[in-house]
């Protein structure tokens, strides 16, 4: 350990393959908690390692299934993560991907406050990210850089809207930078096989603009969308978990940008 201290973000590949031992892994996971783009990069690399796993497929001995089913029959399941779940418990699985954006009790009864706080949460997150290292995901703008760019743009515009099925959305946008940051609070929970998907819309031509991760403490996002065009509107739909190339359900939010 020690003779050589790696830059955390260069470890994404090693981390995705569990090639980090004890202290290295712990350090990288601390880094992941405040590095949105590293989290995104690791998620992408895990899609690749899943294919390595599929390539290694080997049938397990048949009796394994029976003894496993007997064991799960007497094993209690973890409850879903809710706003009341402490972070230490909420965090599960190798990636430990829950992120603290802030805790806002009472937002249900105060939607206006929630919108304001959502903005504050994004700002707070930016402050944290500013200290983090930017590692680029090919094809996607690094989130912290994008958020900072939007928030410091002279033409920063903030738009809020109410989501038809519940919850409020906040968009921070810079036309000059052709970029926006989306966050939402209090969105209705979806079944596990569905996700909220964002759209940039022109008449007859809707472009997918990203999937919202499951809410943490009632907050979803932030998601960055770049490549804004004049006349774009922002839409939100519910789609199958893998995302859709085109909206397949009714818009539950439409914002004129």
């Amino acid at each position: 350990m020690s003779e050589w201290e790696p830059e955390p973000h260069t470890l994404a590949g090693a981390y995705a393959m569990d090639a980090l031992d004890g202290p290295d892994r712990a350090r990288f996971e601390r880094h992941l908690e405040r590095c949105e783009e590293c989290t995104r990069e690791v998620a992408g690399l895990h899609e690749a390692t899943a294919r390595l796993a599929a390539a290694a497929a080997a049938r397990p001995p048949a009796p394994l299934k029976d003894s496993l089913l007997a064991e799960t029959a007497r094993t209690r399941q973890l409850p879903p993560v809710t706003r009341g779940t402490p972070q230490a418990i909420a965090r599960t699985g190798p990636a430990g991907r829950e992120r603290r954006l802030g805790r806002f009790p009472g937002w249900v009864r105060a939607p206006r406050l929630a919108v304001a706080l959502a903005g504050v949460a994004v700002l707070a997150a930016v402050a944290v990210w500013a200290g983090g290292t930017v590692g680029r995901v090919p094809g996607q703008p690094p989130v912290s850089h994008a958020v900072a760019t939007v928030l410091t743009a002279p033409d920063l515009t903030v738009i809020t809207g109410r989501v038809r099925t519940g919850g409020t959305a906040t968009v921070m946008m810079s036309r000059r930078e052709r970029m926006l940051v989306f966050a939402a609070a209090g969105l209705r929970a979806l079944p596990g096989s569905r996700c909220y998907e964002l759209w940039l819309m022109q008449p007859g031509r809707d472009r997918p603009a990203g999937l919202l991760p499951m809410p943490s403490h009632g907050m979803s996002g932030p998601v960055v969308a770049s490549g804004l065009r004049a006349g774009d509107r922002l839409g939100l739909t519910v789609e199958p978990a893998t995302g859709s190339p085109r909206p397949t359900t009714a818009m539950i939010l439409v914002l004129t940008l």
Partner: protein
Amino acid sequence: MSPSPSRSGAPGAGADLAALLAQVAKGDHAAFAAVYDRVAAPVFGTVRSVVRDPSLSEEVTQEVFVEVWRAASRFDACKGSPMAWVATIAHRRAVDRVRSEQRSAARDRRTAAPLIAYDDVAETVADNLDRERVRRCLGALTDLQREAVTLAYYGGYTYREVAGLLGVPAGTVNTRMRDGLIRLRDCLGASR
């Protein structure tokens, strides 16, 4: 074991698996059995490639699936594919087990193992389409990238151990692992 493991890469398979996991989260045992049928081969194959010992591999595989059962409600389909979620749990479990065994018994039985692991792995399931694509995409990497990726993933070595095995600096191994995985991801069209 009904469906062939190669289905894991088929379009639509991920959405089905995500829907099954959502059922599992609600305590549906039949859905869990279906998830097992779908991913047991990749899970067992991955675990065995790292752990090597057959009975220990079965034990770890069972632990992996108990974890899938317990934590199904924590799976977020909007962040990644269900196969990636399961495979990540499996690989992490296998590696952690091997490393804790390593610590308790100074063992060296795996010394030569990873060097044969990849070829070995290739023999395991017939008609595996994923295997062909992965083999092709691994072939497109530089030698150092490919060795670093296969030693780490199939061999379960840390990057420092890989650096020692390959006789290159740890920092070099790190960047090769990351670059190799990124190229692999792009070659496999594995991003969502």
